[in-house]
């Protein structure tokens, strides 16, 4: 599993870890039942604070992506279809927001946008 | 405490070669004063150890180790006792050989003299160590020389009358020896307690 921390951007480190592990899970690189590195090992290998990795793992567990087995560690949870759908919906929403902003910029109406979409899908 | 003793022995090892030579020479020379000086010189070794400690700042490191103040102080006394014992053995052997060969005085006198010298050396250690711990090695050295000179004068005057030494009635050599031993033990114990208090005080 690759986790790359960037110090340059302003995103808090725990968010970066959360996002990267989450993407690894969603994309399938991390499969159900896979063991995650221990909080401490991840922190020490990445040379970041243990508190931060713990926070990221706590968030992942809260969001349902992983679960903890006492004295054994953290594992990837069953792919929760609902969760994934929700993620995808969020992404689509953001893309649509962007489209709407751009549309205002070049004066495109709703119907024209929809026509574009249908055309692209057909070519697809 | 073994660790501390080892550290002191390693530290003064260089000095010890010269020191052993001096002790052997002094111990082998006939005469009470040389013998005494040999033993008192060996009692000085803890002072050298203290000087090395001061120079290297060892006390700071010792504070981080699982040693009590008693351990640290006791190790210096123990070093002195070991050195005195070693020097006594060398002296006893040397003087014994000299006596057998006929150069020096007969054996019982020699034994008495050695015992006396040991007593003086122990007395020295008991007095000077707490002074050095309290005032530091430099100031302690000055006081040490002053006391040394005073004792030297005492020995010189006592030596003149030692041949005609008469024990008062009721006391014999055994009781006298036991008495002196007890006094020295108590003196050393008191000295150690004062040293511990001085060490703690300096920690301040």
């Amino acid at each position, binding site marked *: 599993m690759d986790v790359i921390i960037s110090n340059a951007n302003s995103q808090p*480190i725990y968010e970066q870890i959360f996002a990267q592990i989450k993407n690894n899970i969603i994309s399938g690189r991390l499969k159900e039942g896979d063991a995650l590195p221990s909080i*401490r090992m991840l922190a020490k290998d990445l040379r970041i604070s243990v508190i931060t990795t713990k926070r990221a793992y706590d968030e992942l567990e809260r969001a349902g992506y992983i679960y903890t087995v006492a004295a054994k560690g953290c594992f990837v949870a069953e792919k929760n279809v609902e969760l994934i759908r929700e993620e995808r919906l969020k992404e689509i929403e953001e893309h649509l927001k962007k489209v709407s902003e751009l549309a205002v910029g070049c004066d495109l109406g709703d119907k024209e946008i929809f026509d574009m979409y249908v055309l692209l899908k057909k070519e697809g | 405490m073994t660790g501390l003793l080892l550290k002191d022995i390693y530290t003064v090892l260089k000095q010890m070669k010269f020191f052993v030579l001096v002790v052997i020479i002094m111990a082998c020379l006939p005469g009470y004063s040389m013998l005494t000086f040999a033993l008192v010189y060996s009692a000085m070794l803890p002072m050298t150890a203290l000087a090395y400690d001061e120079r290297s700042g060892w006390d700071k490191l010792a504070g981080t180790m699982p040693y009590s103040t008693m351990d640290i102080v006791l190790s210096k006394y123990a070093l002195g006792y070991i050195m005195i014992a070693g020097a006594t053995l060398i002296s006893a052997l040397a003087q014994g050989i000299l006596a057998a060969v006929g150069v020096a005085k007969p054996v019982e006198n020699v034994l008495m003299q050695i015992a006396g010298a040991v007593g003086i050396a122990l007395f020295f250690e008991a007095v000077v160590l707490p002074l050095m711990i309290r005032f530091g090695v430099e100031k302690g050295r000055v006081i040490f020389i002053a006391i040394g000179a005073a004792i030297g004068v005492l020995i010189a005057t006592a030596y003149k009358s030692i041949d005609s030494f008469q024990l008062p009635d009721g006391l014999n050599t055994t009781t006298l020896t036991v008495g002196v031993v007890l006094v020295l033990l108590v003196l050393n114990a008191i000295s150690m307690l004062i040293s511990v208090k001085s060490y703690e005080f300096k920690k301040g």
Partner: protein
Amino acid sequence: MDAIEIKGLCKSYKDFKLDNLDLVLPSGCIMGLVGENGAGKSTTIRLIMDAIKSDAGKVTVLGVDNKSPEFRMCKEDIGVVLDEAYFPEVLTPKNVNSVMQNTYKKWDEACFFDYMTRFSLPMTKPFKDYSRGMKMKLAIAVALSHDPKLLILDEATSGLDPMVRDEMLDIFNDFTRVETHSILLSSHIVSDLEKICDYIAFIHKGKLLFCEEKDVLLEKYGIIRLPKAEFEAVPPEAVKGKKVTNFGVEALILRDKVSGAFSPERPSIEDIILFTAKGGN
């Protein structure tokens, strides 16, 4: 059980006063103690080890009161590296090994020799022939070779070149892979602390100005640079410290008290320290 708990610690010297220090080092964490020379870091560490007497306050190390007779045995589990190595100069590492074997119950000779090899330190050279870097490496090797649970490092990396410092930081980082191991690391080289610490405690002129999670500090604050006129728009309660020059204002601000429009930059811990010391106005 916390590794170190300090409550109300006070110590006065002629021209310096450590004022009512409260500090906690949670178990399994690395805490960096920052401050300028003379701020009180070494004094604090000496007080923790009971090397000097406090005027007031209580210190508990690994669950043991440092004024109790049990603290002497507690030192078996504490590895200390001071700013200098303080070994008698004629001693060789071989001698040091014998001394330590007779000092610590859990002294591990193999572990010590291992470090000697790893640091390329000659076993039979007397201490006085060691360079500064070698002396500190020896001190660190000694501190790590009796299976301690707590490492206390007082300016242990100052005076070392960057490559050696990084090597030491790696060793300290590895030490805390075990969750019962903790480190208190004091330094005025803030960049070192930023690399491995979980908490940063800033002592300034005898007072603890803050003790916070390092990552929270980096998230909480931002740096903005603006012309003087524009800076007027920044709410004063957001400004933790500022620097005014002829060319503008540079300030450390609390991110959640200013609008995103100012686009604050990510600060370094050193920035946070410098600006906090300067004060709000």
